[in-house]
């Protein structure tokens, strides 16, 4: 028992530190992008176009991950792209989580008519195809960072509402909630003080998953050119441009793709690691 717990803990620890490490690195890169990036991410140099990454023949050491077909530095563009990716992940993820989790808690704990209203709304909402819905929303709202964030929040709150509702419902059936009710506590305070702490591990996992999803959604919207203006580099637009020159310069596509992949993976692993870390039984 103690050994199994130790193993779970160690494994959770490694996961937690690796993913947190990558995300910290990325966050630093995003915040200090103008200082860290070796080149201006927008500076074009048609004579230095499609330079390969540093280990290949004909590389320029000043452009370690190579340049794209307009001669822009891939590394600098990835570093600047982290600003949009992380900004969207944090803001959209947090807003989605707040709205969805609150509605889920209310529906799951209060039941009755609030549950009726919220659940029917979720059902109707989830029947829309999400990508189409996003594109439609952006078309109405216009492109730009805030439009992307609004689109993600508007589409994805249902994920939280559903899962948290189910969790709140099962916690609400526990005797400790009945005891709190008998003790005369107000229902809203029971929801926040008794139920919320027990739902929190799930919220953390969902939140980090949502951050990963937000990064992907932003990339998809950039890919179809619906994200933000072209003078702000994003991973999605890099992948879209890289796709056109995949046979001549694979690195323009592959490096932002790897970054995106690692980031989304880190978010989900961070959530799992944090959940184990905060679980009172495992702790």
């Amino acid at each position, binding site marked *: 028992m103690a050994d199994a717990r130790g193993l779970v803990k160690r494994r959770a620890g490694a996961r937690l530190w690796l993913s947190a490490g990558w995300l910290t690195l990325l966050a630093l890169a995003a915040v200090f992008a103008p200082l860290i990036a070796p080149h201006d991410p927008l500076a074009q140099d048609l004579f230095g176009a499609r330079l390969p990454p540093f280990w290949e023949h004909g590389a320029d050491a000043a452009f370690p991950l190579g340049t794209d077909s307009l001669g822009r530095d891939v590394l600098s563009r990835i570093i600047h792209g982290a600003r949009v990716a992380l900004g969207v992940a944090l803001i959209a993820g947090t807003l989605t989580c707040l709205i969805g989790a609150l509605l889920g808690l209310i529906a799951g704990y209060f039941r009755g008519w609030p549950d009726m209203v919220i659940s029917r709304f979720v059902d109707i909402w989830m029947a829309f195809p999400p990508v189409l819905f996003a594109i439609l929303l952006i078309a109405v709202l216009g492109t730009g960072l805030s439009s992307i964030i609004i689109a993600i929040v508007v589409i994805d709150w249902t994920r939280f509402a559903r899962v948290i509702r189910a969790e709140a419902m099962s916690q609400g059936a526990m005797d400790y909630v*009945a005891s709190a009710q008998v*003790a*005369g506590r107000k229902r809203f305070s029971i929801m926040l003080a008794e139920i919320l702490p*027990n739902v929190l591990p799930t919220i953390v996992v969902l939140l980090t998953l949502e951050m990963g999803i937000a990064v992907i959604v932003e990339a998809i919207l950039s890919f179809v050119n619906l994200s933000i203006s072209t003078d702000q580099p994003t991973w999605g637009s890099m992948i879209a441009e890289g796709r056109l020159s995949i046979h001549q310069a694979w690195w323009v596509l592959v490096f932002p793709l790897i970054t995106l992949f690692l980031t989304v993976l880190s978010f989900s692993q961070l959530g799992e690691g944090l959940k184990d870390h905060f679980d009172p039984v495992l702790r």
Partner: protein
Amino acid sequence: MSFLTIENLSAFVGPAPILRDVSLTVTAGEVRGLVGESGAGKSMIGKAVLGTLPPAVRVASGRIVLEGEDLLAMRPRDRRRVIGARAALIPQDPLTALNPSRRVGPQITNRLVDILGWTRHDAQVRALELLDEVHIPEPERVMRAYPHELSGGMRQRILIASAFAAEPRLIIADEPTTALDVTVQKQILRLIREMQARHGTALLFVTHDLGVVSKICQSLTVLYGGKVLEDTRVGDFFAGPTHPYSAALLAATPKYTDPDASLTPVPEAVIDGVRAEIEAFDRMHGHV
């Protein structure tokens, strides 16, 4: 003088009656057993008194009067306050009755601080006294523990301490020993009786175990299908129950004196009789 009075309480889930014209009284300081099979509605009566009925249950008629206050006629907020100050619950399953993500101490003291307006420090002192009273060793350590670090018996002791903490006049014990193993059951039962006698609290003891009733209760109510079949003193009941179902229930209880004797189930004819009685009742009240 009766102290808790339930008069003609009827409740439904959708069209189905789950409590049929239930009346019973608990006098101050009395221990009343509430006996019946699973689904007889005994827990529902406890929940109706405490105001924790599931949302699907609709109380159609009747009164629940606690120390002169008609609980069902009150606004929910006032009812919560009255119940919080005067009644408490010892729940069935100690494993789910403590919040798993919070330490034990605050879960005992919260009630004193929230309802009685005690200071944190006074509540803390009182909680330590109570834990000592329910024979918990090292109460300081237990106060700082998370529920999962304690055994089922320990948790039930904590819940008993917490139920008596605010000196309620009425405690509803909802099968408090069912989830425990037999040796612990006996200790917990003895503890509840000891605490009840010391604090003079009235106790409504929900159980399906007549052996438990004989040890702890002064009076009892036998339920079947949400209907009261018998309401009597415990001495009279064990001397000779008046209702055929209660007689069969008593006959079905295993005897310590003759452990090899085969168990007597409640005869089909008796069950059919009770069902007919309930159907007649429903027809009379137009529930069918």
